[in-house]
């Protein structure tokens, strides 16, 4: 086998680090409680949309070109359409629990789901 001992340690360390990160990611998911979607463009907060059952709101960012169509519906939010080249933001689909997010890198748009109820982990994450 081509792998040396140091290779295996490196792989094990990276595996442990990513598993830990994913675990932390999942542990911080807070589907319960009131939530809202914060929509950022170029790093500035454009709008917040409430995420709750039965409530629908649409928001179009950009003009006829370079646009993202944001749809919040029934406690979830997604980018329903965009004319960016990679379509990663559209393919991300619905997100509904903090700290999930949708990113559109070409147009510098970030949609963050945040919990409006004060979470007890705030001191750690800040």
């Amino acid at each position, binding site marked *: 086998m081509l792998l040396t001992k140091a290779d295996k340690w490196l792989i094990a360390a990276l595996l442990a680090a990513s*598993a830990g990160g994913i675990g932390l*990611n999942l542990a911080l998911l807070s589907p319960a409680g009131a939530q809202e979607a914060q929509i950022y463009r170029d790093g500035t907060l454009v709008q917040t949309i409430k995420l709750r059952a039965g409530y629908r709101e649409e928001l179009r960012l950009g003009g006829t070109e370079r646009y993202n169509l944001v749809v919040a519906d029934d406690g979830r939010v997604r980018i329903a359409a965009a004319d960016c080249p990679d379509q990663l933001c559209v393919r991300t689909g619905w997100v509904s629990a903090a700290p999930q997010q949708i990113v559109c890198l070409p147009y510098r748009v970030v949609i963050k789901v945040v919990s409006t109820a004060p979470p007890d982990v705030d001191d750690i994450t800040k």
Partner: protein
Amino acid sequence: MTDTRRLIILGLFVAAAGVLHAVEAWLPLPVPVPGVKLGLANIVSLVVIELYGWRPALAVAVARVVLGSLLGGAFLGPSFALGLTGAAASTLAMAYAHARWRPALSLVGVSVLGAAVHNLAQIAVAALLVASAAIFWYLPYLVLFALPTGLATGLTAAYFLARLPRVG
């Protein structure tokens, strides 16, 4: 080896890496995470580091990103910035690991490290581009994905070098 011969061989490596870079942009990956790529062009970086050292490897990597983004029509866009930073950072990290830890760490280990550094650098640029540190939440998923791809590219480079006829 003469300078002309070296220039020609490095030029061929740039062409090969540029094609790999462009082709992998066409491959759809079933993961909706920005920045996830196979990193096929890293094979060329590893080979050039092994054969010629870090300076030619860095030059080939930068030339590859410029060429690849021109072929893909993304020159000077956000993905160009990501690609350039990722390629430069991972090539330098791999060259350093290759020079310092080579006998203990095999070419495959160097490759895995390079793939992880590639993701780290890209995430950092992406966070700057959208001005949001929340992007770093993607990092564990990217690193997890970098392990198999780094292994694959490292093994490919190792097999390529083992079968390369020693001329010049």
